[in-house]
């Protein structure tokens, strides 16, 4: 029996997910023996052609990490979709947009202008910008096009499963790959992580007070965080209650609040909205100015509640003005 063919690919991402896969590959050499990795740009020299030549559906599974920001990423995602029986969105960026999706607070034009013209470190007197039809020494470069926004994989192609995390833990990945190989396929669309929020497995859980009430919010650098007490109880915005567990509570164990990389549970459409709802409900202020004063402790609500999830949230991105003035 031929070994199942597997592909790994990265789109808009930091490379951390690839790192996890490398860790994993070392970890499960035995498993590698069971599969045939036919595409893995970060580690091996395959070409796009190699995939194009395969018959449709020939790949048992593709693991794609990173969000879709360019036409090239889109093209590769579509190609892999066509060739694969199963597509797994791997990591926060592929899942909900991830850190790159914070760019959805700015228009493409703003981004290009800053990066290629206004950034203090930029030296570009000709104000040249990369574009699909850039020329260098008379040769057309055919660069990929920068999309108007960052998209999670599922907004571009059909995704079968998602492994969340920034990056996903090796344990989760191992469990997911094993399940796939053994044909223990969960329902299509599943996120392959526990559906209970992080607090359940948080080492600080026992310290949670029964009367969780906020008078103000602070960021971790504004106080000496007690390493044993629930961070929320200390007024630090911890996304734990609104975030899937399965991460091993690494951040909270490192005395940092959960920032939400595992995304919401299946019962929630919009992680940020839910966290906001809960925090506000438990704030004690009643007068408008008191309320606003308390929220000064959350100077960047979008960055706080949608650190990883802006592109995958209900509203997806910042909108441009709705009417001509």
């Amino acid at each position, binding site marked *: 029996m031929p070994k199942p063919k597997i592909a790994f690919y990265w789109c808009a991402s930091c490379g951390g997910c690839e790192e996890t896969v490398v860790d994993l590959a070392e970890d499960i050499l035995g498993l590698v023996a069971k599969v045939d990795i036919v595409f893995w740009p970060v580690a091996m020299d395959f070409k796009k052609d190699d995939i194009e030549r395969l018959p449709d559906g020939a790949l048992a599974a593709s693991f794609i990490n990173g969000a879709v920001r360019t036409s090239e990423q889109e093209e590769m995602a579509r190609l892999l979709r066509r060739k694969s029986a199963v597509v797994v969105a791997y990591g926060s960026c592929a899942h909900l947009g991830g850190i790159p999706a914070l760019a959805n607070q700015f228009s493409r034009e703003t981004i290009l202008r800053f990066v290629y013209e206004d950034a203090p470190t930029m030296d570009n007197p000709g104000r040249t910008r990369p574009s699909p039809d850039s020329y260098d020494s008379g040769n057309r470069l055919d660069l990929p096009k920068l999309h108007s926004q960052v998209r999670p994989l599922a907004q571009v*192609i059909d995704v079968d499963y*998602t492994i969340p995390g920034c990056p996903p833990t090796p344990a989760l990945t191992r469990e997911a790959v094993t399940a796939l190989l053994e044909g223990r396929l969960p329902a299509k*669309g599943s996120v392959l992580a526990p559906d209970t929020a992080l607090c359940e497995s948080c080492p600080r859980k026992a310290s949670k007070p029964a009367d969780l009430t906020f008078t103000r919010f602070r960021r971790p650098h504004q106080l000496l965080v007690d390493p044993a007490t629930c961070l929320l109880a200390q007024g630090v915005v911890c996304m734990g209650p609104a975030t899937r567990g399965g991460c091993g509570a690494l951040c909270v164990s490192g005395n940092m609040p959960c920032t939400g990389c595992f995304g919401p549970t*299946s019962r929630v459409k919009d992680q940020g909205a839910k966290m906001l709802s809960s925090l506000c409900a438990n704030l004690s202020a009643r007068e408008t100015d008191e309320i606003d004063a308390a929220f000064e402790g959350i100077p960047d609500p979008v960055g706080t509640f949608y650190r990883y999830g802006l592109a995958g949230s*209900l509203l*997806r991105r*910042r909108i441009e*003005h709705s009417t001509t003035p």
Partner: protein
Amino acid sequence: MPSEIITPPASWSPRIVAFFCNWCTYTAADLAGVSRMKYAPGVRVIRLMCSGRLDPQFVFDALRQGADGVLIGGCHPGDCHYSEGNYRMLRRFRLLRRLLADLGYEDARVRLEWISAAEGDRVRVVVNEMTEQLRALGPLDLPGRISEWNRELAGNAPGAPSSAAASPVPEVSHA
């Protein structure tokens, strides 16, 4: 982003999704009806027992599904049938507005009003006022914008047009 600028047709009238609490504002809207007050027909009311039930997801989802504005109505502070629900809503609203502003939404898109069961006329005034403000702002049309955005994609985005798009990522619902 010129493609995103939407010019409303002359007859365009904004669609408002309103979440009214059962005890005060919903009853006030009933009173407006009983008193035959006239207001703009673009508003559609969803009844909740208390403004405290209003999950910010509902606001986002209404916008996401094509509302031009969202109106939230609750009992006056101190009058909540469940004593505190409206304060919880007030706090959500304050932060929500800031968050929405950061995402480019004008303040007038989402409005919170305390309207007691006796203030039928207030319903009329608020709906008409909000309708006028939204008319001045023009359509939000988030579904339209999303398909506009997606035109840069080589193929159709999965689940783009219809209701399935309501869920940001397709997922199984828990058993």
